[in-house]
C-alpha cells in the first residue's frame, strides 16, 4: 500500500460526484475512482458526427431561478459548480387514452396557476378540488423537507403540529390519496404522466415521493444544462480537482479491504489504496456479493437483500436521433411528448413489462425546444425513452441484439409519426440505440437498471430515510446512489451523495473521538 486517502469515493455517478465534492469541500483528502473514462454514469454525453447527445436527462426539477434557487442549484452553487441551466418551457404533452378509454391529448404548462387553469379547461369544474389538492402537496413537500433535513431524527410533535396531513397521507400510495380526496379520474390521469420518472405505478408509489417530484416540476419548472449532463458532471469534477481531490479514470474497484471488521482500503485495477472510509456508488447487492468478505456481512443485510429480491426499478431503453432539419421544420413544438396506450399507470407498467408486443410507451424529447443551441444550425437533436424488462433483454443472443433493439426503435419512430404527426425518419443523420445492455455496460448496475430498488410499498423513500441508521452498518463503508434512501433520479442521487458524505464525516468524527 502506498498513498493514504481520508476518503475514497468509488464511482463518479451523480451521488459519487456530490459525495466527493462534499468531502473535499470539508477539507478531506479524497480520491474519486471511476471505471469508465469520464464522469457522470448516466449523466454524461457522447458524440456522433456533428451531434453531442444527452444520454439520459429529461429534466431536473430542483433548480429554480438564479434569484430563487431550489435545492440542486443551491447545492451546486455552494460547491462552486456553475452550470448553464436552461428552463424547460412546458411541463409535458401526453398523447394516450384516459382510464375510461377515451382519447387523451393534453399539454400542460408549468407554474401552479397556469397548470390549474389548463386543468380546468381539460376537466371543467375541478378547480376547487385541485386547489385543495395543491394545498396538500405544499404541506407534504414542506414536511418532507423537514424530515430530510433532520438526518433521520424528525420530531413527531413538530410533524403533528405543522404537517398533520403529511402524517395522514404519508404512508399511502398515490392512488389511495387521490381516491380519498375524490379527485376526478381525468385529473388523476393527467397527473399520472410523470409516473415513469420514478418507475412505479400509482397504486404502489408512495404519495410523498411522487408529490415531491410533481410539485417541483409544476411549480418550480424544470431545467436542463446547456451542454448535456456531461456539463454538470465535468464541472463537478473540475471543481473537485480545484478543492484538491484526485481523480482516476478507467480504474475499477475490485475489493474492499478490512482490518478486522473495519474497512481500511480498496484494491483497484490501478493498485491498492489505503483509506479511512469508502463511499461506494455501487448497488449494495454487488458490494456484498462480489467485493467484500462474506463473513463481515451482517445477517440483517442478507435479509434486506432477500426481501428486496433483486426487484430493481426501471431498465431504460433509449433511441438517440440527430436530425438534419430544424425542430420547426419538423413540426416539433413541445420539448417533451409522452406517448402511451393508457394513462392508467398500473396497466401501462404491465404493458411495458410485457415486452415488445405490448410496450408502446415512449417519451420523445427534442432538446432544441428548450435549448436552441443543442445541435448545429439547421439540425435538431432528440431522444426516445422507454423501459424494458430484464427477461426480454436477458434472454437475447448477441447475434439477435441489433435487430431486436432496432425493432423497438422503428416502432417508436412510427409512433411519433402516427400519434403526434412528426415524421423524423427521412431526416435521421445519426442514430444510436441504447438498451439495458448499454446501461449495464457503462454503469455496471444490476440488469442495467438506473433506479436502484423499486421504492414501492414497504421499501418507500420515507421508510428508508427513517431507517438510515439501521441499513448498511459496515464500518467505514457506505453505499450511495440510486439504491440509497432517496431513491432514483438525478436530484435524488445528488442529495443522497451529500447526505451519505455528511454521515461518513460524522462517523469519522465519532470514531476519531473514541481514539
Amino acid at each position, binding site marked *: 500500500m502506498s498513498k493514504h486517502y481520508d476518503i475514497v469515493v468509488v464511482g463518479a455517478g451523480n451521488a459519487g460526484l456530490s459525495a466527493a465534492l462534499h468531502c473535499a469541500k470539508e477539507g478531506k483528502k479524497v480520491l474519486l475512482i471511476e471505471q469508465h473514462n469520464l464522469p457522470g454514469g448516466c449523466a454524461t454525453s457522447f458524440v456522433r458526427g456533428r451531434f453531442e447527445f444527452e444520454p439520459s436527462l429529461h429534466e431536473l426539477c430542483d433548480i429554480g431561478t438564479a434569484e430563487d434557487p431550489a435545492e440542486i442549484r443551491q447545492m451546486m452553487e455552494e460547491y462552486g459548480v456553475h452550470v448553464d441551466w436552461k428552463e424547460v418551457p412546458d411541463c409535458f404533452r401526453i398523447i394516450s387514452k384516459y382510464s375510461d378509454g377515451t382519447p387523451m391529448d393534453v399539454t400542460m404548462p408549468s407554474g401552479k396557476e397556469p397548470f390549474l387553469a389548463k386543468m380546468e379547461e381539460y376537466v371543467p369544474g375541478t378547480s376547487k378540488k385541485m386547489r385543495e389538492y395543491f394545498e396538500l402537496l405544499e404541506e407534504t413537500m414542506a414536511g418532507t423537507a423537514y424530515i430530510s433535513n433532520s438526518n433521520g431524527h424528525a420530531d413527531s410533535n413538530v410533524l403533528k403540529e405543522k404537517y398533520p396531513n403529511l402524517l395522514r397521507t404519508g404512508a399511502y400510495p398515490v392512488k389511495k390519496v387521490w381516491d380519498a380526496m375524490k379527485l376526478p379520474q381525468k385529473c388523476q390521469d393527467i397527473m399520472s404522466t410523470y409516473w415513469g420518472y420514478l418507475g412505479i405505478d400509482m397504486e404502489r408509489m408512495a404519495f410523498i415521493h411522487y408529490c415531491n417530484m410533481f410539485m417541483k416540476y409544476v411549480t418550480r419548472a424544470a431545467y436542463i444544462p446547456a451542454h448535456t449532463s456531461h456539463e454538470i458532471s465535468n464541472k463537478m469534477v473540475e471543481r473537485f480537482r480545484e478543492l484538491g481531490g484526485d481523480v482516476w479514470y478507467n480504474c475499477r474497484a475490485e475489493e474492499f479491504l478490512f482490518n478486522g471488521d473495519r474497512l481500511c482500503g480498496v484494491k483497484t485495477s490501478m493498485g491498492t489504496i489505503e483509506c479511512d472510509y469508502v463511499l461506494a456508488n455501487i448497488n449494495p447487492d454487488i458490494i456484498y*456479493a462480489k467485493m467484500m468478505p462474506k463473513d463481515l456481512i451482517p445477517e440483517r443485510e442478507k435479509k434486506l437483500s432477500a426481501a428486496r429480491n433483486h426487484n430493481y426499478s426501471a431498465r431504460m431503453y433509449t433511441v438517440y436521433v440527430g436530425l438534419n432539419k430544424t425542430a420547426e421544420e419538423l413540426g416539433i413544438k413541445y420539448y417533451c411528448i409522452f406517448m402511451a396506450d393508457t394513462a392508467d399507470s398500473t396497466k401501462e407498467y404491465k404493458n411495458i413489462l410485457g415486452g415488445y408486443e405490448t410496450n408502446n410507451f415512449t417519451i420523445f424529447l427534442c432538446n432544441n425546444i428548450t435549448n436552441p443551441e443543442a445541435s448545429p444550425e439547421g439540425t435538431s437533436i432528440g431522444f426516445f425513452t422507454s423501459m424494458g424488462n430484464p427477461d426480454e433483454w436477458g434472454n437475447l443472443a448477441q447475434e439477435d441484439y441489433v435487430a431486436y433493439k432496432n425493432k423497438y426503435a422503428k416502432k417508436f419512430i412510427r409512433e411519433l409519426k402516427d400519434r403526434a404527426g412528426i415524421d423524423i425518419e427521412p431526416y435521421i443523420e445519426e442514430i444510436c440505440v441504447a438498451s439495458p445492455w448499454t446501461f449495464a455496460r457503462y454503469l455496471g448496475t444490476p440488469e442495467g437498471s438506473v433506479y436502484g430498488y423499486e421504492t414501492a410499498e414497504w421499501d418507500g423513500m420515507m421508510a428508508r430515510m427513517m431507517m438510515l441508521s439501521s441499513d448498511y452498518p459496515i464500518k467505514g463503508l457506505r453505499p450511495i446512489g440510486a439504491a440509497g434512501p432517496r431513491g432514483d433520479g438525478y436530484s435524488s442521487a445528488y442529495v443522497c451523495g451529500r447526505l451519505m458524505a455528511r454521515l461518513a464525516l460524522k462517523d469519522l468524527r465519532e470514531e476519531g473521538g473514541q481514539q
Partner: protein
Amino acid sequence: MAVKVKVGLIGALDMLKFKNMSKVREAAIQAAPAKEITADYAVNNNAKALHPDFQKVVVTEIIDHPGADAKTLVLRAADGGKLAYFRAGEYLSLKLKIGQSYVSRPYSISSSPKEALAGKYEVTVRTNPGGFAADYLLNEVKVGDEFLCSAPQGNFYYEELRDPEHIVALAGGSGITPFLSMAKAIADGTEDFKLTILFGSRTEEQILFKEELDALAENDKINVVHVLSDEEKEGYEHGFITADLVKKYASEDYSVFICGPEAMYRFLEGELPKLGLPRKNIRRELLGVTKKIAAHPDFPQECVGATVQITVRQGEVECVIPASCEEPILVAVERAGIIAPSRCRSGECGWCRSKVISGTFFAPPEHEGRRYSDKETGYIHPCATFPTSDLILEVPGEYHG
C-alpha cells in the same frame, strides 16, 4: 391549512401508520431469509460478452497477399471460446508490445460477424512505409503468438434505421477490409442491403482479396468494381474514384461509405461535393491522423521540428517523457512504455480522453470529436492532438488483464 385529508377510515390510525413505516419495513426485512447475497445478472453477462474490456487472441494462421504487400492474420480466442460479436464494418484495436513500447492499432475486421461466434476474427495488415506497428505485424508476428485486442469498436456500419438500402463503398488499398466484412455478412444473410464496392488499386496484380471479392460479387446484392490507377485494362475502370464514377454505379437513393489511405480522402474532398448528397449520406472511416501535420494550415509554424517534454501522470505514477510537436501526444506516451487507453486513433471515439493540467496543444478541427464541456476544461483526445509546449498530462488507466 383548511384542508384535512383523510385516507384511512380513522385519521388517527393514519398517523400511527406513518410512524409505523419503519416497523413495517423492519418486519418485511426480518421475514426474509438470511441467504447468501448474489449478483449474477443475465443482462450484465450479455453486455460483458458483447463489450468485454479486452479479448485475448492467438494468431492461428497468416495468409500472404504477395501482390498487395499485405498479410491477413487469422485470430482465434486464446481460450478456444467465442469472440465478441460485431457489426460488419467495425474494427479491433490490437494491443501490441513492440520493444519497450505498448502501442495500439485499429484494424477493421475483414471476416464476417458470424465467424466471431465460432471464435474467429481476421484482420489484414498492409505494408506502410515507416509503419512501426505494420512492420512488426508483417515481419515479426508468427503463428502461435498471443496478444490482447479490444472488443469490436466503431460506428462505420450499415444502419437500417438511417441509411438507404444501397451503399456505394469507396475503398482504397487495405481500406477494403470493412467492406469485405459487409459483403460476407450480406452473403451469409447477416446483413440485408445492396453494396456496390468501387475499389481502387494501382494494378490488377495489387488488388487485395480479388478472388474473394469476385466470388462475393456473384450475389445479387453485391457489386464489385475494380478501379486501377496505374494500369488500363479491359474489364476494369481506369483512373481514380471520381464523382462521375460514383454516379455511374449509384442508384437514385444511396449513401457513400469511404475507407482508404489519406491521399484518397484528399482527392475525394474535391469530388464528393459534386454528388450533391446531404451530409447524412456520406460516412468516413478514419482510423488514423495525418502524418504531415506540419503542412496543416493552422499548425503553429514555430513548432515545426520542435520537441517538448510531457509530464505524464497516471494514478500514482508520474514520469517525464520527450515528445515531438509533429506527432500525436499518444505516440510519445506509448513510446515511453506507458500503457494508456486508445482505440480509434483518429480523435473520434474518445477512449484516450485525458486532462491537460498545463501547457498548449494543437487539435486539428477535422479530427475534433471532443465533448463541448471537455473542450472548455482542457480535456484532449491525445491520439489526435499535438503538443505545442511542455505539458502536464493526466491519462486514465487501461484495462489490460
